[in-house]
């Protein structure tokens, strides 16, 4: 089966859509903001399991509300009787400590209450975690830029970086839209998306470069189109297997991995789209030709 779709024709429409999506994402992030978890905002998280299934979310909320813990967020978490509670309070003293909170909540709620997970992040640490997360993402972007610049030409470098920004911004924009929590595992997901998107783009770029040499008379638009078609099966199969693995984590991997796998699923879908509809058109706009890559070779 030979794929022969006319992607080139769709470039414009796709690019306008992408630009609107990126713009909307930026507006979302700026105005709606991000729902930072305790990793980045500081605060305390408690996951508890009540053996009595009569306990309602409102019971849990009211038992925490009496304790002067700042802003409190309670939600059901997986099984019935499992709750995740997050509150603002970052540091404790003799009057209120994790110990006293546990005691008071256990007394308040009927039945046996098991504190399955307790996390507390102080203000200094959360600031550092945020900084190092941002630094890691920036460094990853810079490293990608450098790698592609060494392996290809600068036009390719710019194309792939724009594609990555596109993917990361839209993924985070969606997280903002859906008010999903941004925590350490989301940073891991974003970095993996950066790697994956790059991986996908590189495969097409490799083919474009090869075809530029092979068909030196063709225009870049046609070459891009040809290359995308030639690698299309691979693009789809790899995205499919990756998505199969991710969906398996999302559905079966437990509550803790939900956010991470969702971010990855969004990232993989957008990353696949962007390597075809963002990274490739950019080469066209730069008017990359056989000369671009042969000139570089001479300079080297």
């Amino acid at each position, binding site marked *: 089966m030979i794929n022969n779709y006319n992607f080139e024709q769709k470039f414009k429409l796709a690019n306008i859509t992408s630009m609107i999506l990126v713009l909307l994402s930026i507006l979302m992030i700026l105005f709606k903001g991000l729902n930072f978890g305790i990793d980045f905002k500081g605060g305390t998280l408690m996951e508890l399991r009540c053996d009595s299934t009569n306990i309602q979310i409102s019971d849990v909320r009211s038992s925490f509300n009496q304790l002067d813990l700042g802003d409190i967020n309670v939600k059901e978490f997986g099984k019935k009787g499992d709750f995740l509670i997050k509150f603002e309070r970052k540091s404790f003293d003799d009057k209120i400590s*994790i*110990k006293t909170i546990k005691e008071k909540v256990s007394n308040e709620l009927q039945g046996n209450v098991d504190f399955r997970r307790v996390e507390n992040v*102080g203000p200094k640490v959360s600031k550092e975690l945020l900084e190092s997360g941002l630094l890691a993402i920036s460094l*990853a972007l810079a490293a990608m830029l450098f790698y592609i610049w060494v392996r290809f030409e600068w036009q390719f470098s710019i194309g792939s970086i724009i594609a990555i920004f596109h993917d990361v911004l839209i993924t985070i924009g969606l997280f903002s839209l859906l008010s999903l929590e941004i925590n350490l595992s989301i940073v891991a997901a974003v*970095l993996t998306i950066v790697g994956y998107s790059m991986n996908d783009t590189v495969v097409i770029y490799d083919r474009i470069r090869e075809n530029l040499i092979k068909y030196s008379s063709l225009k870049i638009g046609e070459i891009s189109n040809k290359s995308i078609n030639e690698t299309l099966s691979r693009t789809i199969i790899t995205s499919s297997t990756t998505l199969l693995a991710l969906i398996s*984590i999302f559905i079966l991997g437990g509550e803790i991995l939900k956010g991470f796998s969702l971010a990855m699923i969004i990232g993989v879908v957008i990353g696949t789209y962007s390597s075809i509809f963002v990274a490739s058109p950019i080469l066209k706009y730069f008017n990359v030709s056989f000369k671009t890559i042969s000139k570089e070779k001479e300079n080297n």
Partner: protein
Amino acid sequence: MLNFSNSKVLSIYITFILISIFSLTNFLNFESPFLKKKVNLGLDLQGGSYLLLEVDSSALEKRRLQSKVILLKKALNKSLIKFDNFSINDDSIKFTTEEKNFKEFEKIFNLKGSNEINTFLDKYNSFELDYTIKNNLISIYLSKYGIINLRSAAVDQSIEIVRRRIDEIGTKEPSILKRGNNRILVELPGIKDPERIKELLGKTAELSFRLVTKDNVEFGSEKFIITDTQEEISVSKRIILSGENLIDAQPKFDNLNNQPIVSFSLDRLGSQRFGRVTSDNIGKRLAIILDNEAISAPVIQDSITGGNGTISGNFTFQTATDLALLLRSGALPTPLNVVEERTVGPDLGKDSIEAGIVSLIIGFLLVVLFMSFKYKLFGIIANISLISNLLMLMGILTLLEATLTLPGIAGIILTVGMAVDANVLIFERIKEELKGENSNIQAFDSGFKKSIVTILDANITTLIASIILFIFGSGPVKGFAVTLSIGLVTTLFSAYFISRHLTSRIVFKNRDNKITI
């Protein structure tokens, strides 16, 4: 690309077997230390507590500055520098002097070598103290590196004591590490409730024995309230004995009233001093001060010369046990604050392992079915390559005794999804080559050759991202970076050697038949 010499085939499979055999040692119990290696389960999987402690160095900084006061005054007098308005507060020493003295001051202050006032820290190539001159006012404060040095020393000192305290409680395999300049990371597998440990680490346990003075007669006394009885006493600042002189402390019950008490034994020097002071002060009261709180102030009945004594207060057996433990392990130079805490209960860990394994198996099966369906015979090759990839990944994790976390399991599942990419790239390329090429061998050969560069490019980009994550990531997320990075490497190995070898076998067997992928 398709020719494999026998020795090459042998070395490929020997490498594979040698590495993947270690994936089995996790499930078997060998005696040999080399085969005893196992993957460690992270705290999020086995349950346990992660505590990040920070030394509160403000008190230390103040004390350090205070220790400079007498030395500084002495040196100023010696160099005939006249000074006025000498004062000290929390973070600086200040005094005024005339401008003509500035040069002389700078000379003694910035003296390298044996400078008692302002030590030169070779390690940081910087002085311990820094100063500013504004009009006639000289302010002296700890330099940036002076503070770092102080904190770092406090952390080094504290780690040992933290270790002793935790060992005393008897947790299994705690890990206690220095983090940065002012933090200590404590990982306690199996601890479900770290409150007691936090309490024990939150106290410096600075013990001192001091005489109770008559109301304000003596200069150099301070007031304390005995926690128990609320009685106010005034206590001499002179320390007779401190926790340093203790060699042992144990909780006991008092013979008379069956109250829990702490009995202690002193070292030789301590016994002598204690004996002398108690025999000189019979009838007076001796205050026992712990972390700036008076526990009790018993009357000295008799001289205590044997080097053994007891501390009574309103203890429960638990508090007496804790106090004895704190005294045995020694005082911390400064309080430790918990700045980050993550505790996972054992049954959540068990649930996570279960969910992780189930999603790994299902993810794996889905990918295997997909590949078999899509590529038939070659799908089986891809699947064999995938299985050997997973075995090697587990093998390397075991060899490195890496820590497997929940995100780490996610990394393995993701590897399953992404690892087939290399095979897909190869197969798709060969498909194309088969179209224009009559010879099967030629087509496969050039298919491999052309796809390998792309495979390398594509995997290196992901590897870069995951290495950066490894460097910057913390806790469980680091586990993700570890499995993903190793997974990428084993992917390259299994695609480049194992798939290629298996493919070559098929091609050579069917060199004249039509092969479809």
